């Protein structure tokens, strides 16, 4: 059963940046964009497993640091013409604190 878990205060994640959560399901990257929306993806690019948390965040996309694939933060899908998908997790902000459903 997955449940909401408190992660960290929003301000502890840099804007257009990320933090990594180590979980039983592997590393999960939590991203914060310029509009203070948060997203959570498995920290693995569908291409060659690069750590997406280390990529550059722009709009609602992150660019993998290894070979430059663009992955949607919203649904984990790679931008065409690349093809691939990484798992998304539910995430929310409550009173300035980020929660992850896991």
């Amino acid at each position, binding site marked *: 059963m997955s449940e909401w878990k408190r992660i960290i205060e929003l301000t502890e994640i*840099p*804007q257009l940046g990320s933090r990594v*959560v180590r979980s039983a399901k592997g590393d999960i990257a939590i991203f914060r964009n*310029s509009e203070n929306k948060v997203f959570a993806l498995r920290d693995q690019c569908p291409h060659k497993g690069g750590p997406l948390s*280390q990529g550059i965040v722009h709009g609602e996309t992150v660019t993998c640091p290894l070979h430059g694939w663009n992955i949607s933060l919203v649904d984990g899908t790679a931008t065409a013409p690349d093809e691939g998908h990484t798992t998304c997790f539910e995430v929310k902000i409550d009173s300035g604190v980020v929660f992850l459903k896991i």
Partner: protein
Amino acid sequence: MKKMKLVVVGNGMAGMRAVEELLRIAPGLYDITVYGDEPYPNYNRIMLSPVLANEQTIEDIILNSREWYAENHIQLYTGKRINKIDRVNRTVTAEDGTSSEYDRLLLATGSTPFMLPIQGKDLDGVIGYRDIKDTNTMIETAKKYKHAVVIGGGLLGLEAANGLKIQGMDVTVVHIHDTLLERQLDSTAGMMLQKSLEAKGLKFLMSHRSESIVGKDGRVTALRFKDGTEIAADLLVMAVGIRPNFALAESAGIYCDRGIVVNDTMQTYDPRIYAVGECVAHRGMSYGLVAPLFEMAKVCATHLGNFGIGRYVGSVTSTKLKVTGIDLFSAGDFSGGEGTEEIVLHDAVAGVYKKLVIKDDKIVGSVLYGDTKDGSWYFQMLKDNKNVHEIRDNLMFGQSHLGDVGHKGQTQAAAMSDNAEVCGCNGVCKGTIVKSIKENGLFTLDEVRKHTKASASCGSCTGLVEQILASCIGGAYQPADTSSKPMCGCTDHSHGVVRENIRERKFLDIPTVMRELQWRTPNGCASCRPALNYYLISSWPHEAVDDPQSRFINERAHANIQKDGTYSVVPRMWGGLTTPDELRAIADVTDKFKIPTVKVTGGQRIDLLGAKKEDLPAIWSDLSKAGMVSGHAYGKSIRTVKTCVGAEHCRFGTQLAMDMGVKLEKMMFGMWSPHKVKFAVSGCPRNCAEAGIKDVGVIGLESGYELYVAGNGGIKTEVAQFFCKVANDDEVIEYSGAFIQLYREEGYYLERTVHYVNRVGLDYCKAKVVEDETNRRELYERLLYSLQGYVDPWAERAQPSKVRREFEILAI
């Protein structure tokens, strides 16, 4: 708000290109309706010749399928010809009564083949060569009849003749001039071409004027000339030119003059109506090649998309003949004339002819026959107005930038087999690229990179990919315009323009740049943000905001990310020198943090590979205690100053190379630059430090030092060029510092010194640094100013602080 309605008259390459560009930059702005008088969706008209030559099928050359129109919510009417525009009520009406309202109207009505006004031109079997219908007529006719005559020895005529020959007909080309392609080739190349085509079985009647067409039972039987002679003809193809279709526009009262007259924004005299393509007269010129039409389409789309930027200022065109086995390239004005000089290489036996026409040290025209591999390079320089004075001696021998590493020295894409690897980084073969170009209708290098990844990594095979593209799409190929190429998809501004704005208007942070220069995306992308960050901090040191989130991870984590997500740590060893204490500290760190691999690098220092990100601050703390600082092995920054042992120990040494190297490296510590920067100092001309392939190479002599710049030992080995001779250590520091500062201020992001110097010219750099003493001093002082007060990033992050949180992993 109700959507505006855009109606496009003409479902051809120009109109649809404009629509594609519009959908890309302003999706959803319009309800779009397209009328085409042919019964097909948009197809690649320039590929009709390969279809006629049995090399491709109609299905292969469809650019936009009917599904594409549906997916993009475009109402498509095929087989309907618009014959009325009502500009008062803003409607268009087709011959069958179908009608649409518009807020904006785009006319892309193309052109029709010009039919010679001679007796018999309406007989059966007399056709032009323009569309799928004409092509099918030729293929069908070839099955039943024998004799084909093509009037016109231009590009289209020759392609038609070649195709008909392959279809099995006996083909004669009739030309009014005494050489073929007289608008593209000089007489020498024209004669060579005629010979090759004759070898393929085509016949030619040169300097022949047609008088009338003879027919029987309503069908053509022969062509009669002014001198009274005749030639048998069951099929007569007229390829003597095209006429823009502007009757529709003219009937609606839109000003036309041998074409629909448009301004630089592709707007007609009616501000709601735009026009692009062959139907247009722009500054008195009409174009029949596809590359200019695409440029028009792009400009038009930005105006339809309400961005209001971009002007079309006319095109320099290049042509290639799409006849398999014949290599021919022509661009610009090759007719010579006052003030021009010619460089000619002619090898009649090998069938190679190259001519470059040069005026005021710039290429104004080129004709290549038999060996066209440098065509796009010449064309690029022609378009860029590049001064070729410095490379003139080698100009004719071409750009040897192709295939150094990973392509077995291949320089000619045409000679490669389909399974030969073109892009060694991404493992892309020639066949894959060709297939993708054909299937996806690709026209630009960027598109090929996106779809195939070929040349998208190190870029060393760019030349080969360009060749493949050029050979697949012929005259439609337009090399990227380097001088005004947009930085990325987020903006239409070039690197140069953005940089100038940052400097002139004193922008200090990325959001300001994006707002003032109208970025299309909310916060850029992974390619423009690092560039902007660099331009800001290099233009306004100590004032501009250095945004860590706009730096590549390596520069944020101050270590090199590896394929498995671990990092490599390289402590600085000034000039390649180290001490027992430093080595002990490295050994201790290696044990303590279980670093799996320790490697001596090419830059004379030690690399600790496989460190975990969360361990980095602790590793740095230990190294800092031993007095070591970041080696910046990860950044677009000063990397190393490689040295030989020099006069300190070497029996041949003339100068203290290690000492000089340490001084240089300390001077530049913490320097960010457009790309990585490597130095080397050798103590004598034996040059053991390999100074000849560094961004700046210093070679000691008895009487002082020689400085070499713009070398590169990477993707393509480039030997550094002699810059100047200096007398002492202080001058080495000032001259090389000034050169690097010039590069820091003017280089585009990710441009190495060799590419920067190639772009601006070595003479320019010498003028700024060697010859102008005041400027040199100012450059050097600006470098020192921007490096003032630099704090070692490792020491900073070794202490608990906010910048350190990036390295902490969260647990649940």
